[in-house]
């Protein structure tokens, strides 16, 4: 059976290539459909000018993700450049303190550039090169995706422009400087709410204007088809590795997976290869900011409703007239009013559960993991950790939770210090 076969696999680079039939989650799950829909969600809601480049991208994505040569090149980069496979780590002390399930961490924080974002940018940049594009654009919130894009652009010698909201430029200065060191031009976006959603609008505007030579690397599983599917497929390496690693380490699949959800790429990357494993509970954790009841949050799956933004239909944070409203989260990477359409579908079908964690809870988990395990997590990932800390005590000591530690906290030193009343 499928389960036993995978159990034999060690965490070698060869494992990265073991994508199974197509790139799918299993025989029964076939989303999106040919037009990029996940049930009623997803799709292609873009101005006419972008229809041709999106069709060109879809064709290239379908061709190269079935091309053994491309996949071999991708796997070699994931191994030698990103540092994959990333380990799983049994947080023994933390699990003991919580007094319930055993918690394992998927260490995406150990990747080159410090987060899962690079899995996707390595893949899309290789695709850009195959398509003959010479210029890369990206949007970024926390700056992690911007850094990961600037990094691959530097390596491949491609011009790179990163759009970042003015508010985020101010709160993620260190990443702005990193992007500039890497040769990228960082454009501070001053329209709208001056955060991630506005950076995405501005990147779309650039793309409309420069479609001939430009490849737009979207940093999460949002945007028009094929982005949600393509980014998922590039991030699914997380779940493929983790599935085999947990089987090798514990002899069975984890009981629960927990990941934070901004746009949802680290979460879907972890969940996807487990979607058909009915015994594995999936928990996606949004940012509750000051609390869902205050309205100051970034939790569309928990407190929003379906609408259309940035090329797809999904859950959104909007007012009664359909205007997108400002979000709030201590973590810039979760500060987004939409969410990947596949998560909307997993929510409606009940396959995954979506909950939310406040700024205060995330900050507490940040400190706990740092002091207990000597691992400084990103504030985004701290939302997943805080939820795992609630979940673990409700489970038995023989059960396991795998948390996606999507990034490291180096970029968040200023934010955390500020919350303690310190200035670095």
């Amino acid at each position, binding site marked *: 059976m499928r389960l036993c076969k995978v159990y034999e696999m060690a965490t070698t680079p060869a494992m990265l290539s073991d994508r199974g039939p197509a790139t799918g989650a299993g025989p029964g799950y076939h989303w999106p459909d040919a037009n990029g829909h996940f049930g009623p969600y997803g799709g292609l809601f873009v101005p006419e000018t972008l229809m041709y480049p999106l069709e060109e991208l879809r064709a290239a994505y379908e061709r190269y993700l079935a091309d053994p040569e491309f996949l071999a090149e991708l796997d070699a980069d994931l191994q030698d450049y990103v540092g994959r496979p990333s380990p799983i780590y049994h947080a023994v002390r933390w699990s003991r303190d919580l007094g319930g399930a055993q918690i394992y961490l998927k260490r995406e924080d150990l990747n080159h550039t410090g987060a899962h974002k690079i899995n996707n940018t390595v893949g899309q940049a290789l695709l850009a090169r195959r398509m003959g594009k010479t210029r890369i654009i990206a949007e970024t919130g926390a700056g992690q995706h911007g850094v990961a894009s600037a990094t691959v652009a530097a390596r491949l010698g491609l011009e790179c422009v990163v759009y970042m909201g003015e508010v985020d430029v101010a709160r993620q200065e260190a990443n702005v400087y990193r992007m500039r060191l890497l040769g990228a031009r960082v454009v501070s976006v001053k329209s709208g709410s001056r955060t991630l959603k506005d950076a995405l609008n501005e990147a779309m505007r650039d793309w409309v*204007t420069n479609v001939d030579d430009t490849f737009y690397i979207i940093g999460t599983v949002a945007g028009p088809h094929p982005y949600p599917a393509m980014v998922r497929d590039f991030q699914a390496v997380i779940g493929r590795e983790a599935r085999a690693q947990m089987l090798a380490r514990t002899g069975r699949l984890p009981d629960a997976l927990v990941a934070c959800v901004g746009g949802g790429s680290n979460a879907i990357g972890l969940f996807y290869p487990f979607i058909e494993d009915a015994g594995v509970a999936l928990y996606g954790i949004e940012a509750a900011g000051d609390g869902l009841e205050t309205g100051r949050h970034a939790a569309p799956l928990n407190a929003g409703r379906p609408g259309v933004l940035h090329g797809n239909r999904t859950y959104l944070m909007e007012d009664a007239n359909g205007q997108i409203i400002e979000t709030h989260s201590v973590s810039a990477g979760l500060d987004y009013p939409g969410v990947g359409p596949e998560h909307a579908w997993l929510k409606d079908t009940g396959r995954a559960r979506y909950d939310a964690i406040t700024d205060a809870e995330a900050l507490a988990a940040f400190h706990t993991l740092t002091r207990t395990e000597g691992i400084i997590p990103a504030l985004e990932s701290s939302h997943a950790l805080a939820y795992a800390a609630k979940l673990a005590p409700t489970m038995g000591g023989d059960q396991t939770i795998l948390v996606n530690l999507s990034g490291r906290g180096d970029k968040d030193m200023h934010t955390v210090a500020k919350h303690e009343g310190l200035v670095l």
Partner: protein
Amino acid sequence: MSRIATRFASLKGRGRTALIPFVTAGDPQPATTVPLMHAMVAAGADLIELGVPFSDPMADGPVIQRASERALAQGVSLHDVLGIVRAFRADDPDTPVVLMGYLNPIEVMGYEPFAAAAQAAGVDGALVVDVPPEEGHDLVAALRGHGLDLVYLLAPTSTDARIRRIGEVASGFVYYVSVKGVTGSASLDTDAVAARVDTIKSLIPLPVGVGFGIKDADTAARVAAVADAVIVGSALVSRIEELGTTPELIPGVIGDFLATLRVAIDAADAG
């Protein structure tokens, strides 16, 4: 025949190229728009495109983005825009009005309630920038059911197959986006536009309007020589922006500017 089709048929009979101004509803104040619409008609506008403000106008350049922000700051909703059209209609039963905007405010209202309310207000059609034909099926059905046209964009990147496909679902007219870019982008290349308009006309039977990059009488005249309609937006909206503190001057200034375009287009039509 719809009001839009009737208008284009009558213009064709007179050998006149349509002049279509775009302004954002409620910019800078809700009270500005109705008098402005009448002034534009008096200055020679044949059809009006009214922008519905949206928080995330992905296909618009800075000028129209700021117009949206100004209108939203006044709390202007899709419901309010329909109210503006209703007020305009009370004094102008003939000039077609097309709403131009993004899908989400319509999603929230619901396609069918929107179509019914738009028809009742005297709207003639809608151009929903982020709805390609692939996603437009239900919206087209709702609008058609209320006698409204769904106007589509065509781009320099549209293939012949796409142009044909859009021709099957579009009605009223099609809007050729003359440059790769957002609204208010660099000026257009008239020769390239002429070639594309010829191609479009050979593929679909609807009137073709050309917009994006028309800034003055000269570009308007050059486009009039090849298209059925000249659409001008950012050039108006930037003038409205300059008059933000004296909104009472807006109808007059915009009317005078449009009149210069009208003269240039009429000269092109005569020549």
